[in-house]
Structures are given as C-alpha cells and as structure tokens.
C-alpha cells in the first residue's frame, strides 16, 4: 500500500525537486530522504491528505538544510559562497507537475539510448537501480555507471529541464515515444514487469500530453499487446512462442483490451494517423473474434507508406494471404529484397505450400531452416518439412 503511493509519487516528487534544485543528484538525494522519513512516519500517523505535496515540501526543506550546512562549511573554509536564491522562494501549497520536463530531459537525444532508457525508468518510474540492472541483464555497477554518466552529461552540457519549443517538439516527442516503446519491448520478450512499467509511463505521458495522438497511439498499442501476453507463450519453460491464431483467448486480459481500445479511439478522434496509431489499430483488429484480414492488410499498407520498412511489407503480405489471396501475397513477398531474413523464406514456404507448389515450398523451408537461430524455430520448420 505505502509502496504503491511511493511508486505513484516518485516521478512527480523528483521532477519537482529537479526543477527546484536544478541538479539531478541533489534532487534524488533529497527525495530519498523524504521518502525514508515518510516510511517511518506514515505507518504511525497515517498518509497525509496530499502525499505528493508533503514529500516535496519535506524534501525541499531537507535540501535547503543541506545547502545551508554546506554554505556554513564553505564560509568556514573560505570557499566560494553558495547562492542564496533557492532558499526562500518556494510555495508549499501548489506543487507544479514537472514530470513532462523530466521526461524530455531523460529522453534527450544527446544522451546515449541506453542511458535514456535507464534514466527514464529510474527518475520517472521510480525503479531501483538494482532492478533496472537485472531487467537489462547487466551488473548493478554497470547500471550505476550508466545512470551517472547520463546525469553528468545533463549537467555538464546544459541539457535543459524544459518541454522543447514547438518547432522542436515533434522530433523530441518521437524520441520519448521510442524510449517508452523500447522499454516495452524489453518486457515483451519475457520480462513482464518492464512491459507494465512502460504502460505506466505511457499513461503518465498521455495524461500530460492529452492532445498528442501518437502518445495515445503508443499507449493503446502497448496495452493491446500486453493484454495478450499470457497467451503468447506456452511450454514447460514458458518459452515456446504461440502464434496469434493458436492463442487461447481465455488467457487474454479482456479488460485491458477494452481499455486499450478506448485509448485508441481517443487517438483516432484526435486525428492520429501516425505509425503508433496504425499499429494499435492493427492490434485492435487482431483481437476480434473473426479478424478482418483485408482491413489489416490495408493498415499495413499505410504503415509501409509511413515507415518504408520491408519487414512491415512482409507483414502486409501475410495479411493478404490470410484474407484469402496467397498468390498476391507471394507476388508481394517476391518483390522484397530481404534474402538474409529468415521469415521471408518461411513465409514463402507457407504461401507456396498453400498454392500447391510443393517442391518450391520445400526449398524455401530448407532455406529458412539454414537461417534459423533458435531451437523452437528449427523444431517448427523441421516439422513443416516432414509434413510434405
């Protein structure tokens, strides 16, 4: 319970302190101190009416005390004086929400991508450094260094704590969305907590930027995929991939699907036609009892126009085949210049099999088998080859 309040409040409290103190490390230290005091007091005295304001005020007071102490020390040893400006100007009744400033600072493209990801999870998500390290399969020391390098660069290079100007905003928002989607996809390959964490961050961003369709589009996309996570894997070790058509739909989280669709509706109502909105629309169509594959193919065509990605074009071809036209699908696949991509060959094999061209199908499956990298994939393709 207390932990939930802490997780919810961490980003807002830290953002407010970074804005106030102008320094990540000092802000983090002050926030930690305030949360530690709360952990002692709240179980006895109860959670205050406005826990966020309480935490920010307490943290500010502690930070000011520390600055005063350091200043006294500095005077004693005749070092440079600490400026006084920060001491008296705070108002403890209104705590401005500065999480958007924090998001844009953490996801600044001048920072290395792994640093952006780590800092977003730490500063905004309130995850412990050790947990982030575990999720990304690196040592805690490595993750500490990564975070510290990012914070040093923010300070040394003058990365602003601000929402970018309008003419910079589209590019910078893209960078933020890319970081959240990257976090989500880390979680999607098996580490569930990061998927949920990305959704939490996506909810914060969508609430802070209620008129940005792509922020809603990304949130909808993540929710619609996350809702199916329990049906995506099977086997004793939970590592066997289950294809969409074979998934046990009773394992889907239908409430999250409905919520994701509502977010998608909002994105569409805002005129959203970007890559995340289109992908969310595809994911939404794929939750239907009978999937409208020709509409899915049409959306993939739009996504090809937006991204120019041959992998997306391959997905479009699969949708065309599912809609009942394997010959058109094969023609689309054969136009692709993706010879080293194994899924091209397994897809070709499947399409040729459906068209009754068995010799060519076998050759395509064999090529896919040559390129396969994992045991489940090899098992799957070998089984396919034996079926002829």
């Amino acid at each position, binding site marked *: 319970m207390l932990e939930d309040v802490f997780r919810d409040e961490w980003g807002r409290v830290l953002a407010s302190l970074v804005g106030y103190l102008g320094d990540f490390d000092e802000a983090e230290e002050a926030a930690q101190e305030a949360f530690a005091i709360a952990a002692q007091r709240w179980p006895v005295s109860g959670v205050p009416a406005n826990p966020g304001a309480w935490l920010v005020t307490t943290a500010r007071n502690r930070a000011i005390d520390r600055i005063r102490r350091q200043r006294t020390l500095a005077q004693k040893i005749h070092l440079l004086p600490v400026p006084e400006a920060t001491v008296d100007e705070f108002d403890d009744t209104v705590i401005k929400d500065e999480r958007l400033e924090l998001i844009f600072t953490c996801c*600044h493209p*001048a920072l290395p991508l792994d640093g952006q990801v780590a800092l977003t999870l730490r500063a905004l998500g309130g995850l412990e450094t050790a947990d982030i390290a575990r999720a990304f399969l690196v040592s805690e020391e490595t993750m500490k260094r990564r975070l510290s390098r990012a914070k040093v660069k923010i300070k*040394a*290079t*003058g*990365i*602003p704590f*601000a929402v*970018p*100007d309008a003419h*910079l905003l589209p590019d910078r928002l893209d960078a933020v969305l890319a970081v959240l989607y990257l976090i989500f996809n880390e979680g999607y390959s098996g580490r569930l907590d990061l998927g949920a964490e990305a959704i939490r961050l996506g909810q914060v961003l969508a609430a802070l930027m209620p008129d940005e369709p792509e922020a809603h589009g990304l949130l909808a996309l993540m929710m619609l995929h996350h809702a199916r996570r329990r049906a995506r894997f099977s086997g004793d070790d939970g590592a066997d991939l289950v294809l969409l058509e074979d998934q046990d739909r009773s394992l889907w989280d239908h409430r999250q699907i409905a919520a994701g669709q509502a977010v998608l509706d909002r994105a569409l109502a805002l005129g959203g036609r970007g890559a995340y909105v289109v992908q969310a629309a595809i994911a939404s169509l794929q939750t239907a009892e009978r999937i409208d594959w020709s509409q899915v193919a049409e959306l993939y065509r739009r996504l090809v126009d937006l991204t120019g990605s041959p992998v997306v074009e391959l997905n479009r071809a699969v949708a065309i085949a599912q809609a009942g036209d394997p010959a058109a699908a094969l023609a689309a696949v054969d136009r692709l210049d993706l010879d080293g991509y194994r899924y091209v060959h397994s897809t070709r094999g499947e399409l040729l099999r459906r068209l009754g061209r068995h010799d060519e199908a076998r050759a395509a499956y064999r090529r896919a088998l040559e390129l396969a990298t994992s045991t489940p994939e090899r098992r799957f393709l070998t089984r396919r080859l034996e079926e002829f």
Partner: protein
Amino acid sequence: MQYALMIYAEPGYADALPDAEREAVREGFAALAADSRCVVGTALLPAETATCVRVVGGRTLMTDGPFADTKEVLGGFALIEAANLDEALELAARVPPARLGGVVEVRPVAAN
C-alpha cells in the same frame, strides 16, 4: 553557457556543388559569423598545412599533417554563447557542412 562547435568536413566538399548551393554555404557561414551569439569563429586552411607538435624527453618533435588521419578533417571552429544545449545544437545544425556530409561536434567549454 559557452560551447565550442568543431566543424568537420571532407576537404573540397563544396567544390562539386552547383553555384547556388555553394553560395548558400557561403551565406550560411556568414550568418553564423554575424550571429550575436557567435563569440569567435573561423575557417581553417586545408589540413595539408597542419603541423603536429609533441615534446618527448625534452625534444620537440614535429610531424606534417593533421593529428587524426580521417576522411573528414577539422575545417573550422566557432565559440558560441547559448542558453542551453538545445540552443547550441540548433546553431550547430545551421553550420552548412552539417547537412553536406560533414559533422559538427558540440562541446561545452570547461570555464562555464
């Protein structure tokens, strides 16, 4: 804050450009030099004119040519005054070689 913009480009990158584009490059540099945020800035003579100096055991050693033997060479630099990194990066993006295959390295100066 003050930032150094170090401008790297392939020697002669502007030679093959059409006249209008070459004129745009010239104007781009002139605009940077005239910008009130530009403290100092200049182009450098070609890398062939460079001499590297190091002192080893009290002896001064000299070698001909630039320090790093790369395709892009340091062709100029500017010292600018900007409110923050975003403003510095925007100025850097307006330096002509940045859009013509070159690169501008942006570094805060240590005295900030």
